């Protein structure tokens, strides 16, 4: 299986590559349209700011390439947020694949932001490889709005989509590469649905 990790010049590509290597794959890190389009699976990673990431996507000519992918695509953390319509972070327009917006998490006493650590999941789609009661690792200050495409949620002040699915596009707000067994199950389910 050919697995491409989209290189948008930011973030956690190291940890994500290694997670797939642990599953016996040899991922290709690339920003080349043809390489991405010909892969069997595509990973859109990302940590950092949405504005910077969208600039990188446009600058590398990948906006329509990513939107048009037909194979299973997995967005992780910021990569999932980029699949939504727009982000409150710097008021940026995103890829517009999944309906909904990305908004800032508000801190409150006893509820710090970033939402950082292991939160318990409520899972509505066992096809994700996840199950209700799993703990997975989150590290984010912005979150997508909950909606019909959520297949797993966590709570941090409000319901946060932890995993989403629309057609061939899957997203994880949590970090499957750093979520122990539950994360590995999720990645395996993405590779072999």
């Amino acid at each position: 299986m050919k697995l491409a990790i989209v290189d948008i010049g930011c973030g956690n590509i190291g940890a994500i590559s290694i997670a797939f290597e642990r599953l016996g794959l040899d991922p290709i890190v690339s920003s080349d349209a043809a390489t991405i389009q010909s892969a069997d699976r595509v990973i859109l990673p990302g940590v950092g700011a949405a504005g910077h990431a969208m600039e990188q996507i446009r600058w590398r000519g990948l906006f329509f390439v990513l939107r048009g992918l037909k194979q299973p695509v997995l967005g992780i953390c910021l990569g999932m947020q980029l699949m939504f319509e727009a982000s409150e972070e710097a008021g940026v327009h995103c890829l517009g694949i999944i309906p909904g917006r990305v908004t800032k998490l508000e801190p409150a006493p006893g509820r710090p932001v970033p939402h950082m650590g292991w939160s318990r999941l409520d899972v509505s789609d066992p096809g994700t490889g996840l199950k209700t009661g799993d703990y997975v690792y989150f590290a984010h200050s912005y979150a997508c709005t909950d909606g019909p495409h959520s297949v797993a949620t966590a709570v941090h002040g409000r319901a946060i989509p932890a995993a989403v699915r629309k057609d061939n596009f899957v997203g994880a707000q949590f970090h499957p590469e750093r979520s122990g067994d539950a994360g590995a199950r999720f990645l395996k389910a993405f590779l072999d649905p």
Partner: protein
Amino acid sequence: MPARRIIPCLDVRDGRVVKGIRFRDHRDVGDIVEHAERYAAEGADELVFYDITASAEGRSLDPSWVRRIARVIDIPFAVAGGIRSRDDAARCLDAGADKVSINSPALERPALISTLARDFGSQCVVLGIDSLRREGDYVVKQYTGDVATTRDAGRGTLDWVREATERGAGEIVLNCIAEDGVRTGYDIAHTKAVIAATTVPVIASGGAGAPDHFRDAFEAGASGALAATVFHDRLIGIQDLKEYLGACGMEVRR
């Protein structure tokens, strides 16, 4: 709030895990990868690796051991030690670390916090603070890796916490120095004061010796509790600790 995190801290020197008492007299306690694997398997929620001499020696930590760790564990980990530029941080994150923790270099140049938060996101940027209680106040210490180089940073702890949060630090590891390695419990008043001064998660550090010390830190509002000696010396098992905290009504990942 997510599950309360138990965070073993591994002090690293020359790619080996070491432990000192009150930041002195470091002894070798074993191989870094073996420790990382053992803690991940035992249920640690996160790990922190400090290259304790990097800052004092004016160098950044070695990304080669970061990659060795990233290969073997599937839980998050932060690395610290002499990260003084965007490029130093990028090397650690590229090698597979989830977060970088900065301490002395941030005191030298606070704009470093802003730069890292802008380029990698706040969730990657941990601020480590070595804080000492002094005459009813809390003050920041610097270059604590070696007793000969340790000195006052010339800042109050709470002011520094507020500034760092403003600049985009995504987490604070509060190390209360007087208690470090002596196992008499976290400095709870100190930890509470820092939690009240910030909206980001605060990790209690320094002084853990018994399961109820962890309970106290979490009751005070800490998102995580960091410890070294009690885990390295196997005085407390992580599973036992989590069972105890669960029985106290705290949410832990099991």
